[in-house]
């Protein structure tokens, strides 16, 4: 199918997000996830029983258990938790191979099979959004040494890991520091994160005191992303106003008159003035710090 090219990003308002959380086993990812708004946990790992603040969960042994869930079944819930994303993709992969052995290769997915996995998993995420659900993808953490650095990664099979990284709107690592559990959305040396809300490192509270901790975090992320959209529109409007002003300049004096104002502007506005001046036939003289028209004898 042809590629569609558009000029610029259209800012959009979002009501739903996909959040990724990863940590070493036993840190309490599931317990944290149960503090989301009206959660339903899809228990691919069969570990939900370990959670202290357990709420509704469904034990999943095959993809049919997931595919069979209707919008009506999910109506009482606002947040769908995938525990864990790695095991979810394993079960989906098994379903893909069972339905078409050509998509498998010695028990793993073939190249075509990975293509089908990508399509079906992203399709399922879209379906959850259509149903009005936030999605929380829990993942175990894998550690690997590269040179002197220990890199903390999601413990998910290679091809599908890319889909998780691309699909999450925000991503955080949970770790233990002393007696406290921390949640860090920022990318660090050796660990990954996505932090649209620009959180500092969060301390995970006592869930008796803050039973809706993750629900509040998710709301903050949505508010931040929507605030970015508002800022985006404002900045684009400002750039268009500059484009109109610069487009209306008809003389060397006009370009020079704008210089003091443009110098304090963003790189793209400065470039706009420079490009326009050059197209007008002007050269910038660094000594006088002005545009001038070169006169040839």
């Amino acid at each position, binding site marked *: 199918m*042809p590629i*569609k*090219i558009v000029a610029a990003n259209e800012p959009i308002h979002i009501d739903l997000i996909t959040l990724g959380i990863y940590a070493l086993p036993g840190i309490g990812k599931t317990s944290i996830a149960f503090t989301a708004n009206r959660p339903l946990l899809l228990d691919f790992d069969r570990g939900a029983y370990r959670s202290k603040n357990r709420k509704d969960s469904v034990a999943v042994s095959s993809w049919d258990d997931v595919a069979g869930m209707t919008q009506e079944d999910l109506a009482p819930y606002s947040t769908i938790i995938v525990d864990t994303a790695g095991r979810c993709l394993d079960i989906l992969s098994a379903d893909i191979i069972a339905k078409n052995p050509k998509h498998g290769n010695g028990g793993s997915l073939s190249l075509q099979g990975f293509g089908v996995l990508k399509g079906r998993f992203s399709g399922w995420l879209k379906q959850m959004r259509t149903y009005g659900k936030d999605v929380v993808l829990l993942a175990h953490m894998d550690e690997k040494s590269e040179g002197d650095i220990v890199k903390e990664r999601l413990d998910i099979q290679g091809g599908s890991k890319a889909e998780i990284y691309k699909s999450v709107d925000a991503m955080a690592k949970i770790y233990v520091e002393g007696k406290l559990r921390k949640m860090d959305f920022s990318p660090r040396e050796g660990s990954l994160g996505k932090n649209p809300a620009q959180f500092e490192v969060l301390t995970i509270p006592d869930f008796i005191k803050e039973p809706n901790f993750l629900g509040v975090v998710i709301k903050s992320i949505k508010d931040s992303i929507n605030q970015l959209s508002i800022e985006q529109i404002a900045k684009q409007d400002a750039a268009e106003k500059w484009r109109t002003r610069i487009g209306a300049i008809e003389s060397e004096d006009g370009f020079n008159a704008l210089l003091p104002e443009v110098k304090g502007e963003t790189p793209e506005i*400065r*470039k*706009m003035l420079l490009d326009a001046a050059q197209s007008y036939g002007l050269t910038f003289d660094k000594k006088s710090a002005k545009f001038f028209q070169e006169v040839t004898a």
Partner: protein
Amino acid sequence: MITTSVTLVESFRWWSESDLDWDWFLANSLSPSETWNMKAGKALHKALEGAREGEFDVLRADGFQFSFEGDYDLPVRLGAFQEVPCQKTYGDLTVRGRCDKITGMLVGDFKFRVGSVDGDKVEGYLDSYQWRFYLDMTSAKIFEYTVFEAVETSDPYIFVIRQIHSVKQYRYPDLEADCSKLAGRYMEAARTRPELVKTDAEPVRRKSVVDDTLITDDDLPAWAKG
């Protein structure tokens, strides 16, 4: 004051986290030979720079042809501004770069990759300091990699774009500090490795934002760079 590029600082960071020796870095990062796929990548950049809004089965530039035959989830966004130079000074080091696109709060880069874009590749993009420096050098808060996953054909000049991936990152509280820290490490290394001090490359011809003429920034004044 020394000058370097975002590309070189990022290459230095990647190399410093690896087990590879300095000779490898000299040969592969400081003086790399341009591969065929790199030529194709440059051609795709040029094709995108010259593109307008619409639907296209094919884009062409410099003799290369890029055929779009996949199932793409999203459109490719060119950006309100393209090829925007920017720079920032960290102590005695000035880091320069050129953003492929800027739209409001979003800065973007186009990548061309022959072969699959798997989890390791995406992790590489997320680990990169390229996006960190571009956010730090502009007032943007969002960075987007648009990665064109290509397949070779029997004709070396023709590539099929199998998928287009979008990988986003965001400004975070320690972003400026992290960039300063890496700039400091680079500066320290440059004191004993003069090869890390970049000399300006050949002037780049790029499309004016005002009209379609191609202009250079040979005489780009400092205020226009950043």
